[in-house]
């Protein structure tokens, strides 16, 4: 019988505005069947999260997406897509406790929707990285413009991603963990 005494759960939050691709990213990365968490959404809304404007996404649920990545024999990483609305921030408090950090997804057509998430993680000194999801027609921005628009501090990583691609999501996770590690390193005196 294999010893299970060394098992470490880890978690990373996936935040950002409604319809920015959080669900898509979690599903692209998860090894488990995504558990139905948006049951109240209309049929027509499901599956067009990436490519359409979101006027028809009026209903949502408190329930959230989560996904799982078995990193190695003893590390299991959970990804939690956090509800964007501020009235659900009580859930963020529990989820962010003990987390590695957060991916904040941004849709450049609606940058302001990610401000609450950025403020939240900044105020709590939780490591986060910005993932600019590449929607059609929204790709012609440079990093400096994005940094300006989001008022990011210089050390906050920014990366262009395609939330549908697992490799792209993994690359963003790597960036976050590197960033989190850099903040745990003792400051040379």
């Amino acid at each position, binding site marked *: 019988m294999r010893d*299970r005494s060394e098992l470490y759960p880890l978690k990373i939050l996936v935040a950002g505005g409604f319809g920015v691709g959080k669900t898509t990213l979690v599903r692209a990365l998860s090894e488990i069947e995504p*558990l139905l968490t948006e049951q109240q959404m209309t049929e027509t809304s499901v599956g067009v999260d990436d490519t359409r404007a979101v006027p028809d996404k009026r209903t949502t649920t408190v329930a959230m997406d*989560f996904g*799982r990545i078995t990193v190695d024999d003893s590390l299991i990483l959970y990804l939690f897509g956090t509800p964007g609305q501020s009235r659900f921030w009580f859930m963020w408090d529990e989820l962010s406790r003990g987390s590695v950090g957060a991916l904040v997804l941004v849709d450049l057509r609606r940058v302001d929707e990610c401000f609450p998430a950025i403020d939240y993680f900044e105020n709590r000194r939780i490591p986060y990285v910005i993932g600019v999801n590449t929607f059609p027609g929204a790709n012609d921005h440079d990093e400096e413009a994005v940094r300006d628009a989001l008022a990011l501090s210089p050390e906050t990583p920014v990366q262009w991603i395609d939330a549908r691609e697992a490799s792209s999501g*993994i690359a963003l996770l790597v960036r976050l*963990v590197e960033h989190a590690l850099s903040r745990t*390193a003792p400051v040379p005196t």
Partner: protein
Amino acid sequence: MRGGAEDGRHGRQPAGRVVPVYAVTGGRTRSAGADLPVEALVTVTDAGRWAENLHLEYRTILQLAAAPVSIVELGAVLQVPVGVARVLVGDLADAGYVAVHRPQVTADGTPGPEILERLLEGLRARSV
């Protein structure tokens, strides 16, 4: 996490439920498992493998916990709010039927550098 407002208790019972899950938990919302983080991992023990005469929910958890499974996953599979899953897991832990593996955090409440290094290594191995 499902039903963060814990209002999802109507109409979500999976087919085949023998008794309402609130009967199983006796309406308790606090137990040994009450403070478990949603990502805490659960594994069945040898005693749990041989446990008998348990409610369906407990048996389901013991079956799923043959491989490491988190509280939030158990809640989703059982279609109960995560708070209920915590209570059920707490009961099984009290009985010695499951082992619970909590996140390892440092004094400041975050994962330590050793764990982060391993996470980084594991993620990089996937990105090739």
